[in-house]
């Protein structure tokens, strides 16, 4: 059992080490089509200088809607957990 644990630890450690060594270099993604589209077209399509805001509110608006829902659920959870229940 003890040797099993040590072996599992070594396997996980080796996996993480390999992932750290053979990771892709920073700034060189495998596919750049989407990024280039946003960077080149956001000024003419959305007429906004801020590409991040253009992605956040225009191209990926649904994502922002979901984030707003998550925030609402967080407020709801705080109110629900801390509420003084009447007995």
């Amino acid at each position, binding site marked *: 059992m003890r040797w099993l644990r040590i072996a599992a630890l070594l396997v996980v450690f080796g996996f993480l080490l390999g992932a750290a060594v053979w990771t892709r270099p920073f700034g060189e993604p495998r596919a750049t089509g989407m990024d280039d589209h946003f960077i080149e077209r956001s000024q003419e399509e959305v007429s*906004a200088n801020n590409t991040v805001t253009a992605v956040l509110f*225009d191209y990926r608006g649904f994502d922002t809607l979901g984030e707003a829902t998550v*925030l609402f659920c967080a407020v709801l959870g705080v109110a629900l957990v801390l509420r003084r229940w009447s007995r």
Partner: protein
Amino acid sequence: MSVVVRTVARLLLAPVAIFGAYVVMHGHVTPGGGFQGGAVIASAIALAVVAFGAQRLRKQKETLSVLEDVGATAFAVLAFLGIGVTFFYNALAGTGGLFGQTVPIGPNPGALNTGGLLPLMNWAVGLKVLAGLGSMVLLLGLLGGDDDR
């Protein structure tokens, strides 16, 4: 809290809130936006809760609730404005009207009257985030502890 804390909080509240409003309003030109600016304004609310106590801000709970409703509704309505093409279509961009000015392609100093629906959505999300985080902090202060110093 002590007199020192209350005085400093009274001095700092307005600048913090104004900086948050600035971040929200310039979201389509500079880094930042609705979420970030709303969080800054909510930090002002948290400062008020810490300095003055949650009980003194008990009445503001309804105000924050209304603000959150307004923000969420405005966001959904703005998203529906472009339903002729698709949901979340930027209907005001490049039309020449409100926030409809086009930007020159390439590096440029930036203009405030651009972005179409983006600034309006920034305001809506900013309202929603400041009300959401602010009411969360206020609820934690109101319901969390029994001692109110």
